[in-house]
């Protein structure tokens, strides 16, 4: 059964394109063939700045820390997916599984309560600091 949002999100998304209804092409591809649509066999793009491998088979995260295979395994388990990846194009040891994701737009992290003090989870602030409680104290002026 199709999800109730499938049409709104996916199927009708082409109306956003300026050339809606026309065949469009990404800039790296040759001009679209009006008969066959976009395509081209330009081959894989050359690596420009592909990756930042770390030592011992790990890789460097944004902070320059090396993440190792154990961390990768943890990330995989954290995702609650199968640990036996099989031979279908993904690997439980794939270091890409440990990356940070885009932060959710909905973050109800401010719900811990301790002696009437609402506390945030470890949240990094724009100034580099980290708060445990300040962001949730005093929601309205004068409170």
């Amino acid at each position: 059964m199709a999800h109730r949002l499938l049409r709104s999100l996916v199927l009708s998304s082409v109306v956003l394109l300026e050339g809606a209804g026309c065949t469009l092409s990404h800039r790296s591809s040759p001009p679209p063939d009006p008969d066959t649509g976009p395509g081209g066999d330009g081959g894989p793009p050359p690596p420009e700045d592909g990756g930042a491998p770390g030592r011992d088979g790990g890789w460097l995260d944004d902070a320059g820390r090396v993440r190792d295979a154990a961390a990768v395994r943890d990330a995989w388990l954290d995702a609650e997916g199968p640990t036996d990846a099989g031979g279908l194009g993904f690997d439980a040891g794939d270091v890409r599984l440990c990356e940070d994701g885009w932060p959710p737009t909905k973050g109800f992290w401010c719900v811990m309560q301790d002696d009437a003090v609402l506390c945030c989870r470890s949240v990094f602030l724009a100034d580099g600091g980290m708060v445990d409680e300040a962001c949730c104290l005093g929601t309205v002026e004068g409170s």
Partner: protein
Amino acid sequence: MTDVPRASARTLERVRRDGRWGGRVTQRALPSSDAEVADLDPEVRARLADIWRAQAATEARVATSFAVIHESLLLLEGDPGLVALAARAIDDERRHAALCEEAAGRYGGGVCLPHAELAPQQPAHARARSAEIRRALFVVGQCALNETFASAYLDAAYRGARSPLARAVLRELLADEVDHARLGWAYLHTLDEELRRELSEWLVPLTVCNLREWRRIDLPEDDVLAAHGVPPREVALRALEEAVRELLVPGFRHVGLDTRALERWVGVRHAGCSGAGESGTPSA
């Protein structure tokens, strides 16, 4: 009275006057909420105020995500319609922050204090084979995945909400998040075969990493709060899992990506595609 804005002045000032609704925070005026809020237990009101204010902070952070998306689309020479929508989305998220503060202020019974300023966060995609692919991954990850999850979450929240105020707020948020997700799906329609092949290899990591962020959301199991737009964690997680199976997988397949690895990961059986026989694993 609820005519006076309950969002903080600082947050309201960030809403562009030439934005989607001409400087207004919402498309439609929010319903009067004095009576329904007055009937609530003060502790519940305080908790709702804190929750909505916390959401204001995360909404505002996503404005910085969309600044990255806008720049990426410009560098990718993306469709002008999508570039324009990405620019609008930056302001949309600032409006969302103001809207969530408005809800917080109404529940709290005063003008909301400015939300916390959260540090921007984004994936590095250090293993991308080129800067171009990395930018494409940004667009797909933030829009087709993250905003699709957001839409599924809001849809679930809306279905459980009974409060007219909460339903109005959620409806406004959902209307924009749907557009933001569509941006990613529309972008995928414009890609050539080579880039689709590249992105297909990233579907599992993109999904795993984004879903992990969503699973960190802390939600109370409270029917009263659910009526005011805060879904129980179980409900939210179910909506997210459903989104993977019923939106991401068919969506990526629809735009021509190879979803077999993703399907294997989510344990979805699919038929009718090339090589599907081996990919159809029993449901988890």
